[in-house]
């Protein structure tokens, strides 16, 4: 495609030709051509499930392609495992850090390739070499330090150092910035630039489009397993990237807000926190989307989990549709019409080894019983309907849940709780780790639910979501409420100000 028209004179180090890889039910990578040059940063973007991770895993020897060739330095290679790929000069800096937390920096960097002196491991040599490599990327870190307590950013540097020991020609960064702050990202970029000067080919994968635009020389966009476009970065801006990723522009992402909130308070809560010794009171109207904001870790999680009967550090009393209720455990909370979308879908949301049907039906099995037996037909019908409504991409409802991609998994959690037909839906970070397209679908779904009269309480750490989807926003700081914003008052400035405010609006109202 456009690659041939690229006139830059840099030497091609990697050529992937006609790569195809299918998993049961999905064609993950479909006839992809991908080229990397020395001294170039190649950005790779796409929604979750677009096939970029699979492509990189093929390059890293973790998956084996069904079809297609990998050519490194004009030599055709076939990787059967990671070691093969490493030997051919491919290094991967993983998204999930692959370090052993109880070992030292030096031990981690030289894991498996110990320097030896007369059959014994030569620790001094390993420490010296580690120091050298760390110096090369300008990181001041004692090689003897234990990795576990280091901040994420430094762990990442160790990870990079570890990859560099192999002296790779192609280095893949898989979502390296998702856990980093802005300054840390800058530091990482300095290192990447240095590697680039040393004539390495770098593949940079990220959901953060600004950063991709900042660091890349060439950008490839993937969608549904295919390459949509490969062009020099000058061609792109953020909107163009999103457009080629999802076929929509960013400004259209949020649905319209409610025009008029109904008057009936369906849910009121009064909760005392033992940790902060503070009380919180609020109510939610039918059809209202209420956001809980504030800095991270100000008691929002504990508060919202206690609504569902989780955790024990809160003394929470609830009135739901006029009934008084103390949430003791999830079973009781579900009976009262409360649902909770947990923050971490992998540990709290999805039974990864169970089928899609079992997952979606799990919370509502007792609703479909007839003389003790589950009505299978009804269950399948309900599951089929909800899968269609949420446009979850599946092959069969007997498919194992772990075979789905991140966005589809999040929809699976939503499907499970939608079947429970809740009156109040609590959502913790409902769009965490999903791509732009799925985010938009989730926002739309939240609004539809609200329009059907469900009261929705959302905790999200993304400011833009608070502003974009919530009808009202409560801001919490150190366990108490510092602001109650609605309509035009919901602005970034006001939310930030309230996040650090020390005025408890409940006490203020009393005085």
């Amino acid at each position: 495609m456009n690659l041939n028209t690229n006139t830059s004179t840099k030497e091609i180090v990697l050529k992937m030709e006609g790569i195809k890889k299918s998993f049961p039910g999905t064609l993950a990578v479909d006839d992809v051509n991908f080229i990397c040059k020395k001294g170039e940063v190649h950005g790779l973007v796409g929604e979750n499930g677009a096939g970029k991770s699979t492509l990189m895993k093929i390059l890293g020897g973790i998956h084996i392609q069904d079809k297609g060739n990998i050519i490194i330095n004009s030599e055709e290679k076939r990787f059967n495992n990671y070691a093969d790929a490493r030997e051919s000069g491919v290094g991967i800096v993983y998204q999930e850090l692959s370090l052993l937390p109880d070992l030292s920096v030096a031990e981690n960097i030289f894991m498996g390739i110990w320097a030896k002196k007369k059959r014994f491991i030569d620790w001094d040599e390993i420490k010296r070499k580690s120091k050298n490599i760390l110096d090369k990327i300008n990181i001041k870190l004692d090689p003897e330090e234990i990795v576990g307590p280091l901040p994420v950013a430094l762990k990442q540097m160790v990870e990079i150092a570890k990859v560099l020991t192999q002296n790779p020609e192609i280095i893949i960064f898989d979502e390296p910035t998702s856990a980093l702050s802005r300054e840390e990202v800058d530091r990482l970029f300095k290192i990447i630039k240095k590697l680039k000067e040393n004539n390495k080919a770098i593949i940079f994968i990220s959901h953060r489009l600004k950063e991709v635009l900042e660091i890349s020389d060439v950008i490839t966009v993937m969608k549904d397993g295919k390459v949509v476009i490969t062009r020099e970065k000058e061609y792109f801006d953020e909107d163009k990237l999103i457009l080629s990723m999802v076929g929509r522009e960013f400004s259209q992402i949020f649905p319209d807000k409610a025009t008029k909130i109904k008057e009936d308070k369906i849910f009121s809560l009064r909760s005392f926190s033992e940790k902060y010794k503070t009380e919180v009171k609020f109510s939610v109207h039918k059809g209202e989307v209420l956001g809980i904001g504030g800095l991270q870790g100000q008691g929002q999680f504990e508060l919202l989990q206690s609504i569902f009967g989780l955790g024990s550090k809160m003394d929470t009393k609830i009135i739901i549709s006029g009934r008084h209720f103390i949430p003791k455990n999830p079973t009781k909370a579900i009976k009262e019409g409360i649902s909770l979308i947990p923050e971490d879908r992998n540990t709290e949301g999805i039974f990864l080894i169970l089928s899609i049907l079992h997952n979606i039906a799990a919370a509502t099995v007792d609703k479909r019983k007839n003389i003790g037996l589950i009505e299978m037909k009804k269950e399948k019908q309900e599951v089929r309907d909800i899968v269609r409504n949420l446009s979850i991409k599946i092959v069969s409802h007997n498919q194992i849940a772990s075979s789905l991609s991140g966005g589809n998994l999040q929809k699976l959690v939503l499907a499970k709780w939608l079947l429970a037909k809740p009156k109040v839906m609590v959502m913790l970070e409902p769009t965490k780790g999903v791509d732009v397209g799925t985010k938009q679908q989730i926002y739309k779904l939240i609004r539809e639910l609200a329009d059907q009269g469900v009261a929705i309480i959302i905790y999200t750490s993304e400011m833009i979501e608070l502003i974009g989807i919530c009808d009202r926003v409560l801001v919490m700081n150190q366990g108490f409420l510092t602001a109650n914003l609605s309509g035009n008052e919901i602005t970034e400035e006001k939310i930030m100000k309230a996040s650090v405010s020390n005025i408890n609006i409940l006490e203020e109202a009393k005085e």
Partner: protein
Amino acid sequence: MKESQQKIRLYFPIYIVVIIIYVIAGIIEPRFFTWNNNVNLFTRITPLILAGMAQTFVILTGGIDLSIGSIIGLTNVIAASLPYINTPLNIILWFLIPPIVGFGVGVINGYFISKKELPPLIVTLATSAIWLGVTLYIMPIPGGTVSLSVALTITGRLFNVIPVPLLIIISSVLIGHSVLGKTEFGRSLYAIGGNELIAYESGIPCEKYKILVYGVSGLLGSFAGMFLSGWMFSADPIIGEPYVLNSIAVAVIAGTALSGGKGGVVGIIGGAYIFYLLNNILNLLGITAFYQYIAKGLVLIIALVISSPDASKILQNFKNKVLYSKNKELGEIGRD
């Protein structure tokens, strides 16, 4: 349609193994195919199938029941110690008391595992010792007897044709299968084994079902104990011991993952068959005991490898490799 296909694929390998062993046995010794020999086999595998089902239910939740052997022994001894004169009351008691004991003993396991959050391995090992002690106290050496009509019914034939053990096998596996698939209890076992935290947050009463599943295990164990007493016409306090590990092996051969959340009872008959067919052949061949043990171990490993989920993966990889080399050849031809 798809669902049934998937299940067939899952249980296919194990029944293939059974058929292979069966045919080999028949070729070696034609008497093997006689109806009488087969009826004899049904009788032999019935207790193992019941114990394997008990174990499967528990393993599905991620637990294990090492006390199943002692429960079989205890209920076996109780069944042979009850009054054996043929009166309606005696027969009702015979059918009621062992199951109640088995269920109750199982619930005690469940209580410690669920409410006290103790590890199932240790809890059932401990209670296993206790119930073995109690059993030996009731009946230190083999003895006792059961009502003749009960014994004849259990191992007899319905309408003089259909062997009762076969009926027990088929009906218990069918019931077990629908309990697992169609009841809230069965469904919850998979959820608990899949991830107990998520099960709890999905509103599934995990505590209750975990107690219940050990109760059910004890109940099935008591059925095995009763069957053994009817078959042997007496009791043996240590009759249950071999069933502890054999029941686990059968459950795993039948496709249940020891980590929980995956499996079922449809493969159990095949699993139990593999166990006894082998004994049967080796005996018919007159092979000495130590070779028998070695052969049994080897066949178990082979059965496990064939029925494990990895087997299909290995097959798939093999196919891929063949396809790859073919593609390459084709590609080269194309270039010419």
